[in-house]
């Protein structure tokens, strides 16, 4: 097996060098001008959202985390809280005090949350496979459908024509036997692009920690935390004539992870293997009058979980087929209309459901945007009606406004209805001591937000300040509770009210080859259960568990010629671990340092880098009794051929 994998890698390296060796003439200026006729159609996020707070992770942070996973990147560099079960273990998000399944994750516009759990393990998404990451805060049910409640993570791929042959390889090693190899090759011609990204990652994750949950607080080594994963992403882009574009993408990944015990559990023999295939294709036609888009996706995922402590030996397979079409046109000079349809088919098979289950969803959606010249003012109204297995679920709408009141000063406002369909587990589970509830209603509610963004440039100084206040209600929040028969079953139990303030400030100073960036952010989020169908529920008016009321982050980056140094520090405040708020976890502060040096040798560019995590050796827990590593590091070299 290992021989096969190694030879496969060797093969791709040879192909890459062979391709590199070919001489390519660059396109003439005339051709480039001609190519510009075909405009890249924007996603609905950029074309038809307004008033939401958006965060784009800059390319520098994507590069810093190129051999890491999406969960680690977002935890360190974004404003969202990442709920991680430990190094190499599963991780999910909490946007503005909502749950993991209240975050839609869209890969080039396709929801990849999966039907069984309705949430994506972000630790399994390699950053190297992504070219662009955007976080959209707040509800956006009318734009993205089910799950876009707390926020939406957009992970996208992009490619530029006429770039010739490019290749890079990246080799990294780090603490706890962490090894990673990556290879990216792309051939970019004037009418087509083909690219391949490969990665392999394995780690022991046997970090030492003080087990405060054992007699005498002994130092222990994390056990059963080994990880091995590999995958590939293959993309093709074609230009047809002057106005059409087609792309195809294929994402394959295999993950084999042992599941470590908690500090109160002593040992674990659990193991989970995931295998996924994601195939998508998109066609775009940019006519003078009308812009047409059609996209298709086929996702196939296997999960094989074994735990000999519980005799659990569960195999599951889920599939999704998604088709989406959009038409965009203008009626007036200053407006833009989008109408579209989405059809999604999901099925899943596992021993824990009594039968193979499936779901058909059809959604009609429309967006209407008005925009003044230079985009000083824009407003969008969006509507969506979804039908799930023949039943119409509540009509969803949103309205957003953005206005630049004076130079650099922008006001944004958005109100949106959102919803989340129950997951297949919620509906169909039939296992020991637990059963799903097919009569569950979707969770739904409204979210509103108001932001001010102020950008100010003075000589070499760029300043940005943003503040957002938000409010969100989620009704029919689903919770699993035991029935009188002692069988656990989900019900629409709570009404959750979340509200908060988010601040961000950033200053950039640039002079020649020298650049300094300083940024800080602070969030204050209350997310409480306001109503419950359970009589005398002690959790009413209490903060949801694992939602920090406060978190803050600061970062300082210095760039000089080919050298970069970044320090980030994050503070995560108290998090309650029980729903009556009697138990909680202590706050923690983490400091990370990233150092990179670029070296250019003729056509070869080389980057050497080092990442140091938790440099203050903070002992902390994100989830109760889940050990986290103290100081750890990663070193790597990335070579770019061109």
């Amino acid at each position: 097996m290992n021989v096969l994998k190694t030879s496969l890698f060797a093969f791709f390296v040879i192909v890459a060098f062979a391709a590199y060796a070919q001489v390519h003439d660059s396109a003439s200026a005339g051709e480039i001008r001609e190519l510009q006729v075909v405009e890249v159609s924007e996603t609905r996020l950029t074309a038809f959202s307004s008033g939401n707070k958006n965060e784009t992770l800059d390319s520098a942070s994507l590069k810093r985390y190129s051999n890491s996973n999406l969960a680690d990147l977002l935890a360190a560099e974004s404003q969202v809280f990442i709920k991680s079960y430990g190094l190499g273990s599963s991780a999910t998000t909490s946007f503005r005090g909502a749950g993991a399944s209240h975050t839609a994750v869209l890969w080039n516009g396709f929801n990849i949350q999966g039907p069984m759990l309705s949430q994506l393990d972000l630790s399994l998404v390699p950053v190297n496979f992504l070219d662009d990451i955007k976080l959209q805060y707040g509800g956006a049910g009318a734009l993205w459908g089910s799950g876009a409640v707390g926020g939406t993570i957009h992970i996208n791929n992009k490619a530029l024509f006429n770039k010739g042959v490019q290749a890079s390889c990246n080799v990294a090693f780090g603490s706890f036997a962490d090894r990673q190899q990556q290879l990216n090759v792309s051939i970019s011609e004037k009418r087509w692009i083909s690219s391949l990204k490969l990665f392999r990652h394995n780690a022991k994750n046997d970090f030492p920690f003080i087990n405060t949950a054992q007699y005498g607080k002994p130092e222990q080594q994390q056990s059963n935390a080994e990880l091995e994963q590999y995958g590939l992403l293959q993309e093709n882009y074609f230009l047809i004539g002057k106005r059409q574009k087609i792309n195809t993408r294929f994402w394959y990944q295999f993950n084999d992870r042992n599941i470590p015990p908690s500090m109160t559990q002593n040992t674990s023999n659990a193991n989970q293997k995931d295998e996924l295939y994601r195939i998508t294709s998109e066609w775009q036609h940019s006519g003078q009058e009308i812009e047409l888009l059609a996209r298709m996706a086929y996702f196939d995922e296997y999960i094989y979980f074994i735990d000999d402590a519980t005799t659990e030996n569960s195999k599951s397979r889920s599939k999704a087929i998604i088709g989406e079409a959009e038409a965009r046109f203008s009626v007036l000079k200053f407006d833009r209309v989008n109408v579209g349809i989405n059809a999604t088919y999901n099925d899943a098979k596992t021993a824990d459901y009594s039968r193979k289950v499936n779901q058909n969803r059809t959604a009609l959606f429309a967006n209407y945007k008005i925009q003044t010249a230079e985009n000083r003012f824009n407003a969008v109204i969006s509507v969506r009606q979804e039908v799930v297995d023949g039943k119409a679920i509540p009509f969803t709408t949103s309205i957003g406004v953005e206005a630049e009141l004076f130079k650099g000063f922008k006001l944004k406002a958005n109100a949106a209805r959102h919803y989340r369909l129950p997951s297949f587990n919620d509906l169909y589970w039939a296992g020991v001591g637990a059963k799903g509830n097919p009569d569950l209603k979707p969770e739904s509610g409204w979210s509103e937000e108001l932001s001010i963004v102020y950008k100010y440039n003075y000589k070499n100084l760029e300043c940005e300040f943003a503040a957002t206040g938000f409010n969100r209600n989620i009704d029919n929040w689903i919770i699993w509770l035991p029935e009188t028969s002692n069988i656990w079953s989900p019900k629409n139990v709570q009404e959750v009210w979340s509200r908060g303030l988010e601040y961000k400030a950033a200053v950039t100073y640039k002079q020649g080859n020298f650049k300094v960036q300083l940024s800080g952010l602070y969030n204050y989020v209350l997310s409480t259960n306001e109503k419950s169908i359970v009589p005398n529920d002690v959790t009413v008016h209490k903060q949801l568990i694992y939602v920090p009321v406060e978190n803050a982050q600061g970062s300082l980056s210095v760039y000089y010629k080919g050298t970069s140094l970044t320090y980030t520090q994050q503070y995560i405040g108290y998090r309650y671990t029980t729903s009556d708020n009697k138990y909680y976890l202590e706050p923690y502060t983490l400091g990370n340092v990233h150092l990179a040096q670029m070296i250019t040798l003729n056509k070869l560019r080389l980057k050497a880098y080092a990442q140091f995590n938790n440099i203050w050796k903070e002992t902390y827990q994100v989830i109760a009794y889940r050990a986290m590593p103290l100081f750890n590091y990663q070193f790597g070299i990335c070579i770019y051929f061109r």
Partner: protein
Amino acid sequence: MKTKQLVITALALTVAFTSCNKDNPEPEQPATPSASAYDNGVFITNEGPFGSGTGTISFYSRSNGALTNDIFEAKNSYPLGNVVQSMSVHNGKGYIVVNNAGKVEVVDAGTFASGGVISGLNSPRYFLGIDNNKGYISEWGLSGAGSVKVVDLNSKTVTATIATGKGAEGMVKVGNKVYVACSGGFENDSVVTVIDATTNTVLSSIDVGPNPKSIQVDANGKVWVLCSGQWNMSYTMLEQPGSLVCINTTSDVIELTLSFASMYSQPFNLVTNSAKTTLYYTYDGKVYSHAQSATALSTAAVINRNFYAVGVDPTNDYFYCTDAGNFSSNGKVLRYNATGMVVDSFTVGIIPGGLCFK
């Protein structure tokens, strides 16, 4: 410049907000116990939050009616671990079975000072003291292989493994025989395994009914087993309902089997009064009684409320009934007198699932 001021104010605001820490939770300070505080009262085992949390033990003092929560960590400065299943007192020692952590914590039953750990267990459920040197621990075992572990109480090590039916759960000792209810664990089973407590060998296996969990001895020395029934594949209804079964311990044959009517509710929590003449169990959201001489199930409930666990105080026949609430926050114990009238209630830890009377 107006704009400049704005920027400065904004930055200052950010700094101000970042540096102040509001809403710090008030920690609950557990009371420091006196030298042997736990001589006369009831231990309540709280399973702890589902997943990766820790269980705790609460103590209710009969002497002064005081309740102390989380007495183990207060004394020993470390938590018990994941899923505290049960506790038994044997020869002045408390044996606390911690299911998911695969261990039994041994404490001094008077002071609760840690006195070692019995480890290397797989999903242990209950402890039963056999004599001064030996104890039995029932466990669901690895890969569903139910067993009883024989423990040397002096060295606190497992000396032998006795294979039983799947999901070994409740145990009782009658004379020299130990009866083990085999609940099926994560699967299904229907037997009571009978063990010779001297030789640690299996004497017989009695087929009693679907998934027996709790087991008691009555005043006549007969063993009563509560079978919890078996769900259908989709967990929508019971394929086989629960039953109450009486075993003659001289011949080890079944004397009586009483089937429950409901195809949706399982009976649990079989306990006895102090005289061991009446059995109690929870069923269909209520607590029912069953006299040892009765030949039919009673239809009138003693207490009209659903509980997670029930215990009867051998000193005064008070019922200690637990309400686990939403299973993610502190639960309650409600006390009722022998006639089923509520006496009082108090808040204990998360998911109170076991009662141990001392």
